[in-house]
């Protein structure tokens, strides 16, 4: 190959000469007969390489002040040619020139996984925190008083039957209200909170609860609830509706609708069950909502005056003011099963998986 002749060593002349060399290289690389090894030998070979020859010739002839200009341009040209070569090679073989198989898996340290229940519970709690609710917690072993009596479940009341209770051993010697049991709902925390604080009150209560239920795909003796309580002057049933409608939209998206049905809970009156429009089909009806377009999600109601009466009574026993005056204040409470919501949200078919510690299950939530 010929070595282009330089007319002078001005930058413009150098640029023109280098452009000429580059064009030659590109033509060679893109030619149909291109052979990588051949090209390397001819162009980049240490002794006989074309680039080396040009470099030697031009540098020899150049005045001192132009040597640097030529050097810079050579380096740039060499790099460009190398990159072109690399790109050609990659196109040919799919393997990068440096020898890395970029399709092999990376080596990041595996992160631990957030438990779907813990995550769901935290999300629900934070919806209510944003609405001005404080978090309340209570013990998992409760007395009959907090779990039943104060919540308007009188002794021998049929409603107690629905709450198959696990009890602590050897309680027979104690008065009924002091007997220890595994709380069957998070509602006792409502009572504990009202004993400690005067209204206004806004609480969201997450926690673990227990029932003496045989385990199957939808039942577990251990499960989780989030409960809420709002007490103030002038709290109405329409406020309860509005609050839950807002919370469900915040949690499931603004398209979700709610509807309320009369229900029965000893500690609320009026009581309601709440359904949300199916989050899978938008209410058109699908397998997940049993073709009804609705999914049952919450229980709620206005706090029964009998509950406020128990709280006042107990406050007096504790030497506190009976400040839950039903002539002045009212409130609402609501509760939901976190397990069911998590199962629905993630399509979990067996509640037992939540309590299995099975890595194959948990790692799906990574």
């Amino acid at each position: 190959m010929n070595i282009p002749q330089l007319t002078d060593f001005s930058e413009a002349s150098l640029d023109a000469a280098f452009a000429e060399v580059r064009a030659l290289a590109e033509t060679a690389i893109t030619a149909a007969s291109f052979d990588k090894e051949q090209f390397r030998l001819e162009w980049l070979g240490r002794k006989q390489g074309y680039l080396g020859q040009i470099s030697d010739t031009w540098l020899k002839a150049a005045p001192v002040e132009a040597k640097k200009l030529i050097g810079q341009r050579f380096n740039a040209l060499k790099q460009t040619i190398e990159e072109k070569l690399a790109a050609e090679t990659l196109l040919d073989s799919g393997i990068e020139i440096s020898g890395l198989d970029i399709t092999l898996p990376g080596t990041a340290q595996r992160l631990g996984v957030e438990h779907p229940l813990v995550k769901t519970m935290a999300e629900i709690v934070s919806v209510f925190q944003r609405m001005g609710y404080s978090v309340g917690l209570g013990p998992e072993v409760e007395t009959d008083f907090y779990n039943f009596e104060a919540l308007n479940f009188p002794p021998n009341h049929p409603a107690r039957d629905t709450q198959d209770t696990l009890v602590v051993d050897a309680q027979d010697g104690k008065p009924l209200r002091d007997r220890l049991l595994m709380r069957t709902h998070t509602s006792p925390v409502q009572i504990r909170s009202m004993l400690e604080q005067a209204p206004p009150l806004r609480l969201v209560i997450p926690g673990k609860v227990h029932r003496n239920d045989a385990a199957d795909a939808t039942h577990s003796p251990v499960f989780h609830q989030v409960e809420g309580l709002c007490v103030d002057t002038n709290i109405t049933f329409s406020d309860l509706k509005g609050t839950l409608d807002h919370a469900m939209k915040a949690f499931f998206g603004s398209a979700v609708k709610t509807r309320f049905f009369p229900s029965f809970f000893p500690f609320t009156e009026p009581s309601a069950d709440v359904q949300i429009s199916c989050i899978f089909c938008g209410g058109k009806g699908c397998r997940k909502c049993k073709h009804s377009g609705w999914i049952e999600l919450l229980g709620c109601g206005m706090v029964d005056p009998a509950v406020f009466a128990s709280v006042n009574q107990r406050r007096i026993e504790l030497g506190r003011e009976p400040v839950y005056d039903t002539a002045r204040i009212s409130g609402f409470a609501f509760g939901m099963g976190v397990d069911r919501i998590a199962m629905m949200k993630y399509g979990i078919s067996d509640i037992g998986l939540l309590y299995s510690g099975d890595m194959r299950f948990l790692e799906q939530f990574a």
Partner: protein
Amino acid sequence: MDILTPWLRSYLPALSVTDEQLAEDLTLRGIAVEGTFAIANGTRYEMDITTNRVDAMNHYGVAREAAAIYNVPLAPLPATAPLAADKPGDSFPVTIEARDLCGRFTARIVRGVNVKPASGLIAEYFAALGQKPISGPVDVTNFGWLSMGQPTHVFDLDTLEGGIIVRRAKPGEKLRLLDGTEKTLVAEDLVVADEKKALGLAGVMGGWDSRVTETTKNILVEAAWFDPAAIRASSRRHGLHTDASHRFERGADFAAAPLANNLVTRLVVEQAGGEVIGEMTDIIIPALAAKTADRPTIALRVSEVQRHLGTTADGLGISESIVAQYLTALGCTLTQTAAGEYAVKLPSWRLDLEREIDLIEEIARVYGYNKFANTLPTFIGTVIELPHAEQEHTIRTTLRGLGFSEAISSTFCSAEEATLFTTASAVAIGNPLSAEAGMLRPALTPGMATMIANNLHRDVSTVRLFEMGTVFNGSTAEVIEHTGLSLGLTGSAIANSLYRAEDALFYELKGALEALLAKFTGAVTFDTNELPAWIALGRGARVLFNGQPIAVFGELSATEQQRRKLRQTVALAEVNAAVLLAAPLRQPVSREISRFQAVERDFSFLFPDTVRWADIDSSLRALKIPELQSIGPVEIFRDPKGKAVAAGTYSLLVRVVFQSTERTLADEDLTGNSSRIIAALTALGGVQRA
């Protein structure tokens, strides 16, 4: 319970809505229709009615709800009007001895019946309900039950010896019931008896010997009211849950007994022939009537209705006229006492209504919950975050960052595991789900060990789990709860050239605990005191936080490994998380980073096995070399054959980093520091290697 719409509509002549619409409107008012099935001239509804509304678990009860919802008239219940005797005669003698448990008892004689399965409308309805007619008089009692929800009973009159006595059972008294079982009664059971013997378990089930059979000629019809608590206790005691007990234990209609008796008597004659003899006996205990049918009125203020219920979607609110209309339709009698105030006489069938709030609920219910507006309460107050929320979050995120996934296990464990995993006291459950769940868990490691074993048994060989949850100590007198934390790991430990492969799991767990505790303010030290029995000998440690024990960790002992059929090493940690939740989080402080070069120096020594890293570390720190930045082991080597390194000793490469914040270190600084380090290591019993 099932409802047939033709039957229902027979009480609602003016009702014009479709069966489908009716089902939806009832459901939205809490009288839930769970399923609808077409029948010959209408629909069969499968109902799901909450147990507080036993009054509505029958056709007439549902009809009353519909009448209230649509504001249409409700026809009087047919066949319940007073019934004249066909032949004069003495009324049947009835004595109520248990005057606190039986409030009303009606009885009437029908003679000359010819028992055969029911026909006509009853048979037609039964067919639509999938119920087979058995014998006219019994079918009639079932029909009465389905119509109006009042249990009734028919006796074969000729098996009775003397008049009826309602009394408590004699202890040990035997009674064979309709289902053929023989029960031994206790003094608290209420029985319907004759002068010689118990005939039936009151309010629960009739007796075998006095039952109506194909050969029965003369009949006694009973309809009564029994005390809810007594019936509930009896039903539970004998494990008998019947339609009758279901109703009586939730409160039957005190006024319904004579109506039901008229209905059944009339229909028995219609179905089986015979003649009504004499007047109906109707014994009433006024004290119990006063508690039910004759309850005092309730004061209702329209302003309270509005204060509790709030805004309606149409903006009109609940008016006084709506209040009066709904309550009247439900069977209440309203007498105005002042402007916007009423004395409300309650219907005898609604024992669930006792207070003003109960009436407010009825108004909301009939109005329709979804016709109320969605409003938000205004709120002035402070939002309080839990004091330890941040600590809890830190524990979770740190452990996840270290590769541990969160798990939740059972709250219970076996007594055996409780003793194995902790020396702390454990509390027993009185009615455990199983023996394996007999105790409240006093530690989280039992559950963790189980979860890891389950993974291994499912061929999941690499496991990293943590659980944070409540653990329980104390006694059955007083249970003490605190938050615990467990870590568990097995399989492919993080490789580290410093440690032998068989020790890697232990050091990974130790590293995780160190990283976790480093998030909190407090001094962390380790020792091997008071380790529990589940930890393999020499393979575990105890962690102290500010001098107080906070955790134990180590490898599961060989015995436990074998008992659980585990073929690979499992390491566990039990942490008292309550201490961490109460501890302040470490507040990071930024220090200036030195501009001067750091210099590494390695020291190769042979040490006897008795010299531990902690000795080396502390003796070097005791030199108080100001430029000493860090000390660390880089290589540890033992030769099992005792050749390269003698048995009972190990070689150790210690790397020390010097750096000054003020200047570049001179050679003489480094030489001086190095010789002090060599001297200190030699003083520990080390021999410097070439």
